[in-house]
Structures are given as C-alpha cells and as structure tokens.
C-alpha cells in the first residue's frame, strides 16, 4: 500500500517544487519520538496560525453564561440547548438534577447509546451517591426506583407507553434528552418524537443537542405539541476552544488553510488551481481519444 503511494510521489517529484518530498524513503528511516529533528522554520503565517498553542493555566471552574442562563430558564420553561460536544451541556443537566434531588424531586436522563448511558451512570453515582441513581437499558436494570434514572431513550418511551395504557403517571419531574439531534436518525429518530409528544406537560423537558440549523423551528414545534414554552439557548461563538485550520503538505510543511478573510490562503489556492488545470487537460486529452475510438 505504502510503496504504491511512494511510486506515485516519485513520478510527480520533478514537476512541482513545493510538492517535492524528501529523497530519503520514509520506510528506511525510523521515526524517533524523542528525536524530533530541528524545529521547522516558521513563516509569519504559520507563526500566527500556531500562536497561543499549548495548555492554559489551571483556572477555577466558572460556568459559562449560557450555562447559567439555561439553568435559570429551566425554572419557568422547557429548554433546548444547542452547543457542540464538550462545551458543557452536561453541566447544566447535572446542576438541575442536583437542585431537584435537594427538593426531593426526580429526574430521567435519556441517551441514545448504551456506552453513553453507562458513562453517565458512573458520573452521576460518583456525584450524587449510588442510592440516588438507577440505570435502565435493554439488558441492565439497577436501582430502578431511584430518584435519578439514566437510560436509553427507547426505554423511557416504553415507560410512557406503559403509563398511558395503565393510567399511571410517569414518575419524574424532569426529562433530559441528551443528544436530542438523534431525532433526525433514520432508524430510531421517531422514538425521540414520540417521547417529546407523549411526555405530560407537567414534566419539564431539557433537550441537549449538537448545533442544528433550525433550533427555533424545532423549539416552536415542541411548544405547539406540549403547550409549554420552550426556550432556545445557543452557545455564543459556538466553540468552547477556538479552532484553527491548517493544510499539511506531503513535504511536512504546514500552511494556514484560510486567509484573514476566511478565503482559501493564496498558496493553497495556487495548488487547487493547478490541480484543476491538470484535470481539465487530462479530460480534454481523454475526450479526444475516446471520440476517435468511437468513429473507428
């Protein structure tokens, strides 16, 4: 596999200077971690790209404004939080659960995946104590009378079915739908819709979702079907840690992918244009040949 790539690189080697790789075949050299080799000379662009790389100084945790805002809104209404993974959506859920436990109330935390359910179960037992938390999945049922239940969305939906048929209420005051964007999953998405439609309006809903294009439309649908107001909280700036984008070239050089205006960086643009010309030329040649063959 690798030797094939190398072959194609050698053929192209003479053409493009900036593309030319090292002459020493890589498989003859052993990459030593400790021996990084000389640090590459950094151009101004790359220095700027890498500026600030590293670990921040340890700081005491302070919740983001969007987190406290979501928590405050939950006192009065359903809340849809849209933010990328790792930006602290779970913190909101955890603090709300803490508040409910203190008030002697109950919560149901649903996730789409068993692995996620297990890890939330661990997290919550560590946080609130084993007696406070139960888990329900397709093959695991522990402490199912606990005030806090972690489980798959399917199991929660099934409980709703049972309660509708048996005339008993679902025993919870808050339902958290983690990864709520699973509503768009082709196979299982309908379960999320059923859960939202069938959850009694007296139960508060907290939906945690990845960023989606139609959060307001989604929330206003929830308001309609449940008759309860549903606020939308979006993390401003979208990402908890800023993101920079780079292009790595076969000669191990790094370039910023974008310029200051968010367009392709000049050097990258040249490479792309050259690839486009190459292709056009090839297809023109190929086109002529195939026509000729047709007439022969």
């Amino acid at each position, binding site marked *: 596999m*690798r030797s094939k*790539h190398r072959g194609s690189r050698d053929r*192209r080697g003479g053409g493009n200077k900036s593309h030319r*790789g090292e002459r020493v075949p*890589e*498989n003859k050299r*052993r*990459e*030593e*971690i400790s021996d*990084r*080799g000389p640090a590459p000379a950094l151009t101004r662009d790359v220095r700027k790209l890498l*500026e600030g*790389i590293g*670990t*921040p100084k340890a700081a005491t945790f302070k919740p983001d404004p969007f987190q406290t805002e979501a928590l405050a809104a939950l006192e009065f209404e359903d809340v849809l939080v849209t933010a*990328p*993974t*790792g930006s602290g959506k779970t913190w909101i859920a955890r603090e709300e659960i803490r508040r409910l436990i203190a008030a002697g109330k109950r919560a149901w935390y649903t*996730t789409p995946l068993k*692995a*996620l359910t297990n*890890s939330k179960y661990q997290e919550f037992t560590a946080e609130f104590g084993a007696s406070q938390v139960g888990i329900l999945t397709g*093959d695991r049922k522990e402490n199912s009378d606990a005030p806090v239940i972690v489980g798959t969305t399917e199991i929660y939906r099934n409980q709703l*079915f049972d309660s*509708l*048929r048996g005339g008993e209420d679902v025993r919870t005051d808050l339902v958290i739908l983690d990864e709520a964007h699973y*509503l*768009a999953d082709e*196979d299982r*998405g*309908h379960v999320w*819709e059923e859960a939202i*439609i069938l959850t009694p309006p007296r139960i508060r809903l907290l939906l945690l979702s*990845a960023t*989606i*294009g139609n959060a307001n*439309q989604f929330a206003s*649908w929830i308001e*309609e*079907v449940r008759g309860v107001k549903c606020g939308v909280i979006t993390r401003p700036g979208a*990402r908890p*840690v800023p*993101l*920079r984008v*780079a*292009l*790595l*070239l*076969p000669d*191990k050089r*790094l370039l910023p*992918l974008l310029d200051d205006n*968010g367009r*392709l960086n000049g050097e*990258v643009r040249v*490479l*792309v244009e050259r*690839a*486009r010309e190459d292709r056009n030329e090839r297809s023109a040649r190929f086109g002529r040949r195939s026509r000729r063959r047709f007439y022969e």
Partner: protein
Amino acid sequence: MKLSMPEMPPATLLTALSNYNLLPAIVFLPTRRRCDQAASEAATMRRDSNDKRREERRDFLRSFVEQNPEIRGHRHWDTIIRGGVASHHAGHIPGWKLVIEKMMSAGLLDAIFATATVAAGVDFPARTVVLTVADARGNQGWRPLTASELQQMTGRAGRRGRDNVGFVVVAPGIHQDPERIAELLKSPPDPLVSQFRATYTTLLNLLDAFGSFAQVRQIAERSFAHRNAATDIVRLERAQVEMEQTILGKVKASGCDLNLSSVTGFERLVSARSQLQDSKPQTRAEMFYRWLDEQVLPGRVVGIGRTGRRLVLVTEKRDGNVRGIREDGRSASFGVERIGRVYSPTYRLKEDFVEEAFEDVRTRGRELVLHEPRLKDARAEDSAALQVFDDSLDSILPKHLNADEKQKCTEILWSVLSEADELHQTVRRIESLRDEVWAPFEQRARVLSMFGYLDFVAEKTTERGRWLADLHVDRPLLIGQALENGLFNHLSFSHLAAIIAALTADEDRDYGELELEDPLVKALAQIEEIAFTVSTEEWKQGIEPAPELNFSAAAATANWATGMEWSDLVDETRAEEGDLFRMLSRTGEALLQIAGLRKAHPRAAQTASIAADAVLREPVR
C-alpha cells in the same frame, strides 16, 4: 476540487504533527482496516523512547484488566504500549474502546486512528483533528461529507481547560479536497429533519391507550414531520378559498345562476372526456401496435414482416421485445412492431412440439390468423361514449334556462375551466397531505387486523395485540406470529437464541460460516415460511419488504449460547469483535423482551430467559 496528494505513512504524519507541537491528535481514516493498519504501522516505525510513559501505559492497561478481563491480551496491546498510538472504531468491543478513551484523556496516547463513528456520542477530545479524506462511506458507496458530520469531527479538536487552541489539519490524501472542507467549515449546520414513521409497536400501544384511530391519528399529526405538512395545508386551504371566490365572482358577474358544484362538476366531466379521448388510439398504426402487444404471447406463432411469411414461435415477451424460435430451430429476437401476423393457437413450449406447431400453422395458416381490429369500429365505440359525456355536460345547467341563457352559461363554464382545474388540484393536494402521516399507520393497522392483533372495525387491540404491544423488538409481528404458532415451544434455548439472532442481525453482515444443526435448520425454515406469510400481507398493503434472515448470525449465536469461548468465536467466525458484540447484545435484549411474556407465552418466555442468560455473558453484558 480534489487535491490529490500522496498519503503520508502514519509515522511520518505523526512526526510532522509533532514538529509543530500538534499532538495528541485524532486522525480520521475512512475504514476500520485502515485504522488498525495505521496504528500498528505507526507503532512499528516510531518508538516512544520515554520509558516512563511506556510503563504508565502498561500499568494503566493492567489496572483496567481487573474490571474488564476481556481486554487481556488484546491484539493491539503491544501497539499501544510501545507506540503510544491506538485505533478506535466500531469493530472493537466497548470495553476496549473505553480503555482507549480513558488513556487518551489521561494524556498517555499521542494519536488515535479512528473512523467517523468516534465522532458521535462520548466526549473524547484531542488537541488536533486530522482529516485525510473529504468523503464518507454511506450506504451506497462513497459520498461527500456533510457539514454536520464535519462539525462532529472538528468538535473533537481542542480540549477544554487543556488547550488554548484546537486545530484541524487537512492532511495529504488521494481523495483530499481542501476547497470543499473550507466550504463545509463555513456552512451553517444541517437542519434537523424529522424521520417520524409508523411502527407496529407505536400503533398498538397508542390504540390500546386511546381506543380509537381518530386519536392515534391526532397524535401522529402532532409529529414534527406533519408540522411542515400542516403549514402547507393551511396555506393551500387559504388558496382554495381564494380560488373559490374568484370563480364565483366571475360566474356572478356574468349573471348566470350557477353554484360552485356545477363549476367543479363541469370541470371533472371535461377532464374525464379528454382523458377518454387521449387514451384511445388515433391512428391505425397505434391501434395495431396495442393490439399486437395484447395478442403476442409465449406459445403463439407469429409471422414477421409485412407479409408475415417468416414464422417464429414466441417463447418470451418483455417491454415490447420478443424472443422466439425460428423454423430452422435457431433463436430470434425482435421488436413487437416487426410482427405482421399472429396465429391464434397456443402451443406447448417443449422441444418436441416445436416442429408440430410450425407444421400446423403451415397447413391451416389462413384459418388460424387472428384478425386485427379496424379503426372505424373502435371509433364508433368511442363516439358513443363521448355522446354520453356531452349529454351529461348539458344536464349540469339548470333545467329552466332558455336557449340563449344556456349558451351564455356554457360559455362562462368554459371560461373558468382552468381556475376550476387548479381548484381541483389544490383540494387533491390537501387530501394527500392530510393522509401522508396517517396512511402508513392505516396500512399497518390492516395487516395487524389480518393476523388478529387488532380489530379494524371496532378500532380496538385484541388480547393478542396487547401482549404484542409489550414486545419491544425490531420485528414484532414476525416474532408474534412465531409465538402464536407455537414455534418457540419446542426449541432448545440455544436454537431460540439463534433464531432471534437471525432476525435481529443486520441482513448484510457476515458472521462466518459455522455449521447449523439440523433442528435449527428446520426451525429457520419454519420462520422463513412465517416471514413469507407476513411479508405477503405487508406487500399487499404497500409496506416495504422486511430484511432477509441472517443465517451466519444464527450459527454464531448457537455456538456462543452453548458455551464457546469468546476468542474461539472471534477466530472461527472471523468477524470483528465489535460486530459480534453488538449482534449478540441486541439478540440478548430481544430475548429478554420475549422472556417478559410470562403470562401470554409462559413456555417460550422461560426458554427465552435461559437463552438470554446464555447470550448475555462476559464480555457481552
């Protein structure tokens, strides 16, 4: 525009990243195999000379074994310790993936080679995310990444509290496309699109809870999917009222005493009349062709060409193409339109009878020729039908009108014809939008009614339907029918597990070729029979066919349930651990569901309970 660059060997890639201080990284690769290869290649080519970190990794793995014995001696064990790299994808068992995730967050790994599945769910970040392709593998081969998929991947770049900045590195690759990645990074996230659909389980539960189709329908119409339809319906209804007013305004202005139903009735009649005319052949050739298409059938002899002298015995006809045998015994294939004559008898298509057929036609030729219809006859039939329409058009007008008024009213009816047509289309569209969400439920209600799980007329679940409502499995009706037919009553627990696996596993995934025992083969054949009956009824109602049974899953599960070692199962099936794990775990869950039917099916429930225990043992929990 693809920027095709030779891919870097994984170790070189890591060195390049390390030169810029960009580790640890998650490197996204398109396939599981590529992830495994990259990890072991990188581990061979680079060596972590930091003894302390190597020791830490070894200790970490060892400490994890106590809790998760199934990871002991994993084939990637050394790769991780020596190279500080790992692969992470759906082919690994959850226990192993968890170790990798924990080691990564403990800062013990430099890189993870992963497929896009790591992008979903569990929080698992790194300083840098490396993209090697701008495509993703879909159900039908390769397709471009979507904005949301890319966002899920780039969401892994930058560890909160541990990185000031996160990086996305577009790395060299044969199918790399920096232009598109830049484009996707800028595009807004995809909107959430409803996938609401009807299932047997939902229908039975809602009907049992609410007791009428109308109420089930009301719930279905509250779905996110129907919400868009609902706004369309409101808009169309408004348009409908406007159209009606326009039409009535025009009619009134002309001084004609006509109501809306006369206008729409007239439009329907005119439309039906023109449809009748369109569907009738207008030329002799057209008529002849249609006649040929009806008359040329396998077993008949036809004459080719205008004179029809060359004879062919037809063996097959499809889409206007005919295959047959010539008199000299050679085969022929031609279009229907080349036929000039058709002979009436149908001969047997056996080799011995071919000669007889041609002999018969040659001797009695004339009297056997079918006569083509004449255009004049066909036209006479039509004009009679058209006359009926014309009379009905007349009768739409009020009786008391005199000739002048009639003339005027007919003119006004013709003048609003296109508005009336548009009105009709609008009403039809509203009806179909109204039915879109409900229709699939009704189809399923009819099927369930056929098999006695609900009473369609009384709009009630039957006793049978109530236990089926409790059975939360992928294909409840099929399993319900198997239970109802007593199929599970005489099965051993391992065979029951095997059958449920055959129904639960993905239809196209291969779990090896272990042997199936005879009684199991027999039971699988019975299940196939039931599946056929069920899918025939479903097909009649327009429900898509269910997937095929997976026999290799059945064989693997039977072996697992009777005590095969995990490592032997993996070796003998040659399936990936993660795939086996998922299949068995889903099978176990389905068995637990059946085990819950203690009242309705005590015997099957008991077997299922034993089977579930046998399947859900370490490492499948």
